[in-house]
């Protein structure tokens, strides 16, 4: 295999911890196979750094199959890099070519402070969910039979489409306003589309939006960048639905 791989220059954001100032550093990796995933390329870099006695680059990752939402990275100016419908772990090196320089930065937003290198703190998402991203039903199992309320296939499918959000934060990272509305809109929509979610719908949307504002996310100006960069293709319609839900809840 040797000799056939790509040689790449990487410009990576390095930052020791939340308090330190970070800066871009340049590294070189050689003989990268086009079949590698982007994170496997990062593994190669880290093994190289460890061998040289340097600290490896910290980055979030876990399932490496595009579903856990842990991996992030802003690659060459785009959340999860240049491919569409993928997370960074599913991005493959065949999207790049020999001699390329790749810029790798953490997801940026005031509400996503950097913890270390490419790792950011996304617990603001957690607090938004805690503000109302649930249906208040106890977990005893003594609920009514699952088929007691029929739900139209259309509504169920639409709710499912909204529910596929993996909470990675690419929408915030890519938004020029660092707005979290695609994320919040998806959750609000999932419940708004289902009869089970109706009872608390008004309080839910008000509380979740209030928490979103409190966390310091920006406002949506409908550029649509989030929808394009979302690895799960969550539709902008979910933001429209959230807007409607909030108007409905407020008047």
């Amino acid at each position: 295999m040797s000799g056939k791989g790509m040689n790449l220059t990487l410009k990576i954001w390095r930052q020791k911890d939340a308090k330190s100032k970070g800066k871009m550093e340049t590294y070189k990796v050689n003989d990268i196979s086009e079949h590698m995933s982007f994170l496997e390329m990062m593994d190669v870099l880290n093994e190289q750094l460890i061998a040289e006695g340097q600290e490896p680059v910290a980055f979030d990752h876990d399932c490496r199959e595009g579903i856990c939402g842990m991996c992030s990275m802003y690659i060459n100016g785009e959340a999860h890099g240049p491919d569409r419908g993928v997370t960074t772990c599913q991005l493959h090196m065949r999207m790049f070519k020999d001699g390329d320089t790749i810029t790798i930065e953490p997801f940026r937003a005031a509400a996503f402070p950097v913890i270390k290198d490419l790792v950011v703190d996304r617990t603001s998402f957690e607090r938004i969910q805690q503000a109302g991203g649930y249906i208040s039903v106890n977990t005893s199992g003594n609920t009514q039979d699952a088929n007691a309320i029929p739900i139209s296939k259309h509504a169920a499918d639409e709710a499912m489409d909204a529910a596929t959000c993996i909470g990675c934060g690419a929408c915030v990272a890519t938004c020029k306003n660092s707005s979290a509305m695609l994320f919040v809109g998806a959750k609000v929509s999932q419940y708004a589309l289902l009869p089970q979610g109706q009872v608390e719908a008004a309080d839910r949307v008000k509380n979740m939006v209030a928490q979103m504002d409190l966390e310091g996310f920006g406002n949506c100006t409908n550029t649509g960048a989030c929808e394009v960069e979302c690895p799960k293709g969550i539709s902008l319609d979910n933001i429209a639905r959230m807007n409607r839900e909030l108007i409905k809840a407020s008047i």
Partner: protein
Amino acid sequence: MSGFLKSSIGRKVAMALSAFFLMFFLLQHFAINMLSVFSPETFNEVSYFMGNNPLVQYGLQPVLLFGVVFHFVMGFILELKNKKAQGVAYAKNNGAANSSWVSRNMIYTGVAILLFMIFHFNDFWVPEIVEKYVEGKSQVGKDFHAHVVHMFENPIRVGVYVLAFVFLALHLMHGFTSAFQSVGGTAGRKKTLQNIGKAYSIIIPLGFVIIAIYHHFNH
């Protein structure tokens, strides 16, 4: 309700509502201006009505002024808040990969329109107000049409107007559908709205441009 207006979405809805109002006003302004091309007499009549009817003057005019100021002020407030939400800037950001230039630069097209409006108010609205309320002159029988034609003799002014309408077109190109999206009205009809928006944002500014050029060459 007051909580609603403090929320991000509330502000965005307010922004959209003022935009709807301004877009409607633009349509009406456009219709009246068109009269100046086809029928100077009717144009004069309507202009007199708009300038002297108490309902328009004391009712609609303040609302319009408020709408304009609100849209601009809210636009700036949101822009500042959004800037604050951004944190550290990216070393490399490829915005063109996922969104249109017009959608990302509403603030700049907006500022250009604001500057133009100062110029435009200075051209027409301020002299009008001075004439009516400071000097106390009657506008009965005034030839508004001649004034318009006179104003567009100057090629530099025509150039400024044309440029301003290009900015207006760019602003509307995103603003039209964006306003519908903000009030949650796009579900299921996004394509239709986009098409109407495209038509509106091209036809209206282009119409204004044609009127300005027409008067320039037909004085």
